[in-house]
């Protein structure tokens, strides 16, 4: 049939596309032992499928070409052969068993999360990740750092568009790290393709996963379970450092946390709070309430001119600290420190024409947020 020639340029296109380097067509080669094993499983099953496909489609196209009426083919009236049927059932059966053996072995190793050198608790939030180094007093959030302008096509997109964060997860190379995954709100899923680690973060439950990162470097992934509006905007970035650099980083992070605590003791002016509050607002609140405080009607209430942000200050502080049950409004008391909370509440009460003139000090917040 002449018309099948249409297919040729199309097949040619598909074959030639992967040749271009930018068009990644296959799983990441993997940078851990487990990831390489999985990639190998993937390639074996892929080639098995290709082989079966060649045989089945080969017979089919051979029949299409040779057993067509226009060539004078007469139908042969056979319609059963139990022996052949049993044969072609047993063969795939055997192939599948052969496939199940290495798959089972890999899976058993993936589930062995014992004897970890470092435990990191990963908590999913709408729409950011929280990393807590258990036993090291380090606890921070990791938020998308791609500027809004790039997303809205008002600026050139950077190299790591949507795959960059303010504070990556930092891990030591060559050590077994165990992840304890949970969530604060809906189900998220934490995935780094190069590690072949993907595990759901489920509110109220703790899942385990582990990795032994081999090479220092930066590894990127994303949330893979639909978790609401900004599901596409909560990437995972892991920075693997050699052991000495990792130890240095741990020490630095600890002293930064102490400096932060000291800042809460200082006195802050309204202007300072407003300036800091705007930054905090844009990273923690603007996703729902929008940068202009207008919210999304029916889903996320406006703050500009709202009774909460312009009325009595008590309920305003309360809702920011403790959230609102049954809605997407989270309890930020546990997520932000006293300075940031004071700044953002002050900002919300004075921005977008709210102009209440109120300001809240970090000390007041610290007292309320016990």
């Amino acid at each position, binding site marked *: 049939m002449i018309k099948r020639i249409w297919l040729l340029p199309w097949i040619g296109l598909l074959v030639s596309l992967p040749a271009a380097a930018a068009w990644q067509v296959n799983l990441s080669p993997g940078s851990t032992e487990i990831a390489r094993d999985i990639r190998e499983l993937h390639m074996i099953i892929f080639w098995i499928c290709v082989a079966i496909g060649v045989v089945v489609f080969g017979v089919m196209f051979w029949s*299409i070409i040779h057993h067509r009426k226009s060539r004078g083919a007469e139908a042969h009236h056979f319609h059963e052969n139990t022996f052949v049927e049993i044969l072609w059932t047993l063969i795939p059966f055997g192939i599948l068993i052969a496939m199940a053996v290495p798959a089972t072995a890999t899976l058993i190793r993936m589930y062995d999360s014992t004897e970890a050198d470092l435990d990191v608790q990963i908590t999913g939030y709408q729409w950011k990740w929280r990393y807590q180094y258990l036993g090291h007093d380090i606890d921070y959030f990791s938020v998308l750092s791609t500027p809004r302008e790039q997303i809205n096509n008002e600026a050139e997109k950077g190299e790591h568009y949507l795959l960059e964060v303010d504070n990556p997860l930092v891990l030591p190379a060559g050590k077994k790290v165990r992840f304890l995954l949970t969530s604060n709100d809906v189900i998220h899923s934490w995935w780094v393709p190069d590690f072949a680690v993907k595990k759901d973060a489920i509110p109220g439950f703790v899942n*385990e996963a582990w990795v032994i990162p081999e090479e220092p470097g930066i590894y990127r992934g994303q949330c893979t379970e639909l978790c609401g509006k900004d*599901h596409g905007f909560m990437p995972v970035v892991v920075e693997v450092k050699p052991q000495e650099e990792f130890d240095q980083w741990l020490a630095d992070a600890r002293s930064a946390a102490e400096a932060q605590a000291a800042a809460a003791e200082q006195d802050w002016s309204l202007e300072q709070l407003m300036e800091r509050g705007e930054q905090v607002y844009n990273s923690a609140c603007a996703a729902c309430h929008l940068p202009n405080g207008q919210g999304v009607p029916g889903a996320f209430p406006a703050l500009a001119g709202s009774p909460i942000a312009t009325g009595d200050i008590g309920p305003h502080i309360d809702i920011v600290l403790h959230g609102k049950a049954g809605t997407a409004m989270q309890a930020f008391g546990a997520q932000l420190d006293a300075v940031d909370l004071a700044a953002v509440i002050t900002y919300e009460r004075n921005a977008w024409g709210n102009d209440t003139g109120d300001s809240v000090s970090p000390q007041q917040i610290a007292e309320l947020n016990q």
Partner: protein
Amino acid sequence: MESTLGQNLGDTHHAHGPASGIGRWLFTTNHKDIGSLYLWFSLLMFLTGGTMALLIRAELFQPGLQLVQPEFFNQMTTMHGLIMVFGAVMPAFVGLANWMVPMMIGAPDMALPRMNNWSFWILPFAFAMMISTLFMDGGAPNFGWTFYAPLSTTYAPPSVTFFIFAIHMMGISSIMGAINVIATILNLRAPGMTMMKLPLFVWSWLITAFLLIAVMPVLAGVVTMMLMDIHFGTSFFNAAGGGDPVLFQHVFWFFGHPEVYIMILPAFGIISEIIPTFARKRLFGYASMVYAIGSIAILSFLVWAHHMFTVGLPLAGELFFMFATMLIAVPTGVKVFNWVATMFRGSMTFETPMLFALAFVVLFTIGGFSGLMLAIAPADFQYHDTYFVVAHFHYVLVPGAIFSIMAAAYYWLPKWTGHMINERMGKIHFWLSFVGVNITFFPMHFVGLAGMPRRIPDYALQFADFNSVASVGAFIFGLSQLLFVYNVIVCIRGGARATDRVWEGAHGLEWTLPSPAPYHSFSQPPVVK
């Protein structure tokens, strides 16, 4: 006297033909009318869901947010999935069953004609309600067609309640449709039409109907549990109250996996009718086909958690569902071998229905291969919730279920309308669809493996090229479906007269009726030798 006689004659005549006006469609109990209603309804839903898909693909044409905001994007992916599954594919199969099952088994009509009318007329209201949520405060459901809790309970927009009610209505409609199919097949077969002579389409629908009755109540149960959590203070899916969000997924997929087979078994039946006709050869291994459909149906209840490999199942659970899923691949493979063996040494011609059926065999098998890959639990950790999965299930649903529906429409349209289809236009529609479908969904395998998660409105730059290709393909595929609408309308309005047999190699009771089939067929049961 004479006038009375005339009136009587008129009445008698009236009783044998359709009523006139809108009443014909509102009050009809005729299986052909109801079948047509189902088919038109599903075509309308197919175009609606397709428009949403094009909106999604248009947004994904380039990185960055251009056309829609993320919250609306999520509503589109959710509504696209729900409309295509419950509004397009399932009603189309029910419509085909309504038209063809009585004609294939030599029955005058469906067994329960009034219930038949009701089960159809529920649907437009259910979908009107579901689509109306798009215009509500807070927007339509935005939690994906799988509506995982707690995103669909605690964090859902207020319209979720309407969504739950709509799902209940669709469930009632499906269950009644299924009861009707079973009652018809078991009770209204013509003398001599024993179970072992049933056409494979009828067999596949009989088993599908049992699946529907088994799992639609499970779906109703899970949405009711959601309703209780949202409005009545229960905590089925809320860990804070002692519930478990993963319970939702277990119950949902206990419905969801058999649902996958509900959408593909009737397609197997259709393809098993078409290939023998155009290969002019009996179906190879009819007995095996029937038994394989039965075994697939039973096993489909034992593999649900392969959709949940990353939720943290215990190791034994992972292994159980991996082994069971790999085993279920065998009977599915057998069906493909049988179709190929039917073609082997046949005498084939390639009319439009046959082209769609051949594309089905090839592309469904590709979808089956990626399904096999997904069954390997360790590898699934890399595939899960990426575009690889999106590619997989679109390969089994679009060139699978949808192509089989189009093949069926082209195959039986001459019997329905009395006119042959325009072969030339049919072939153009086929080739545009075939090329479009592959350009759309094949690159999704690549971006999925490269690491692109599903259900995201914007993506990193390395996925940009394949996404543009997929979007172009989607518009080719989407727009070429307007040709399908054109072909159907042209075929209804005119065209070469169809013979009773229509296709040279066709066998079965439906081809013994005149074309177009009379409004009431087989008032006297035919005798099957």
